[in-house]
């Protein structure tokens, strides 16, 4: 079979070793390039087939949805659950193959993203009546993480509840995208305890995770908000505690204040700084004195948070302390935050600001003017 190659092989055998090695590399490079080309061609062909199928089936699906759901007069008169099922109109031979059912799921989701109310509910009923949730369930059980993510997104889009035992392990998945989709799904789909996964989070919630979770939590309608003090007190995961502090501030959860005050004694200074910041934002005036007392024993990040908190609390009792820090601290950040705190302590801080604008050093005056400018945030 490879006889025609033999003369070449003999020729190559007589070449210097360096050239032979170079030839092997060239052959390997050619093989990998061909593989890459085939892979690209395969991807493009698949895309072409998908687009062709979509172009053929989407108008049929759209027509059925518009005719039997959007234009359905009966839907307006009865609730989605009460009216006669429209699923029989969708039981066409063209929609039976697996890929066609997937197209149908995608299209129902696309429609549901654009319409809510009775029609949105009817689309969900259609999804369940056609047993498309079984296809989704199959994807969730698949070994491929992107199939699982797809399944979770489908469940979320259709508002179909998933058992905690299925979802909770996925919230700790090693795959970042799957983990994020599972947490998203858990918050959106859990009826009673959408934050239960905080109990089992083993890794750190990264800043990006926190931003995503915050967006989901604050934009989900009818979400049951628990008392976050539970995690602030008992969670061993510092990133969960830090995230809960932000949620407490967002939801102005005054019931969690005692738990945050306890956190002032924690050994972790990052967490302590977060707790101080939360107390300032919640305007807990009772802690003003404690914050000033602990100030000198704190690392720089906590000192800065204390100054910010004092500015938010606006109490005049410690105005002299803040002024002293502004005038005598050696660290620039401390001086800047002290200046901002004095400016924020309006109206009690106003005479001090006026006095400092006359008596302070040129550099301090510059810092003060910078902090007085409402257009500059930092």
């Amino acid at each position, binding site marked *: 079979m490879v006889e025609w190659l033999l003369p070449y092989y003999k020729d190559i055998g007589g070449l210097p070793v360096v050239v032979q090695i170079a030839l092997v590399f060239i052959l390997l490079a050619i093989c990998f390039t061909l593989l890459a080309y085939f892979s690209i061609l395969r991807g493009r062909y698949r895309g072409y087939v998908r687009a062709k199928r979509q172009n053929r089936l989407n108008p049929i699906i*759209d027509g059925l949805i518009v005719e039997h759901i*959007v*234009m359905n007069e009966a839907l307006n008169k009865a609730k989605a659950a009460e009216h006669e099922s429209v699923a029989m109109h969708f039981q066409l031979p063209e929609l039976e193959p697996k890929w066609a059912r997937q197209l149908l799921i995608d299209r129902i989701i696309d*429609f549901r993203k*654009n*319409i809510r109310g009775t029609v949105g509910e009817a689309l969900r009923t259609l999804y369940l009546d056609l047993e498309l949730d079984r296809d989704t369930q199959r994807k969730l059980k698949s070994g491929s993480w992107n199939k699982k993510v797809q399944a979770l997104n489908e469940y979320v889009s259709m508002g179909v509840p998933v058992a905690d035992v299925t979802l909770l392990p996925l919230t700790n998945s090693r795959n970042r995208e799957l983990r994020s989709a599972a947490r998203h799904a858990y918050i959106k789909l859990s009826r009673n305890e959408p934050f239960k996964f905080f109990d089992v989070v083993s890794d750190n919630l990264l800043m990006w995770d926190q931003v995503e979770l915050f967006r989901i939590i604050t934009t989900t309608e009818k979400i049951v908000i628990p008392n976050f003090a539970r995690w602030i007190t008992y969670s061993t995961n510092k990133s969960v505690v830090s995230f809960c502090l932000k949620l407490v501030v967002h939801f102005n959860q005054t019931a969690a204040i005692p738990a945050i005050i306890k956190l002032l004694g924690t050994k972790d200074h990052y967490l302590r700084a977060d707790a101080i910041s939360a107390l300032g934002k919640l305007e807990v005036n009772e802690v003003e004195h404690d914050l000033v007392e602990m100030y000198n024993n704190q690392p720089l990040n906590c000192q800065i948070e204390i100054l910010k908190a004092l500015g938010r609390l606006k109490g005049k009792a410690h105005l002299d302390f803040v002024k002293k820090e502004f005038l005598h601290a050696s660290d620039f950040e401390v001086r800047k935050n002290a200046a901002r705190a004095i400016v924020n302590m309006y109206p009690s801080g106003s005479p001090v600001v006026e006095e400092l604008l006359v008596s302070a050093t040129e550099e301090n005056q510059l810092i003060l003017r910078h902090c007085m400018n409402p257009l500059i945030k930092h």
Partner: protein
Amino acid sequence: MAHILVVEDNEIMQKLVAAILEREGHTVTVAPNGKEGLDLLSVPEPPYDLIIADIMMPYANGFEILNKVNKSEGRRIPVIIVSNLSNEQMVLEGFQLGAADYVTKPIMAGELLLRVKRLLNSH
């Protein structure tokens, strides 16, 4: 029944809004982007009783449709702007430019019909 111009780039929204309005007996003309919407409004006496325009569209956005309606001579066609829930600033800008009403995506069929009916009755 009224003749309504729907200027919307999202194919599904076009179908949904057209179906909802046609179900009530209205005649619907769909422009798939802002530029085509502007073209349809460039005739001397546009035959539309109401315009439903998305804010975010390719080529020309909903504000340009509003500007076009504002500058046109003759009767003023009321415009309902369609925006995402998060586009509060854009809704305010739309009202400043003279939008008669707005609906947010995802839309509700009943709400859209009531707003359309109210505007058609008042104009």
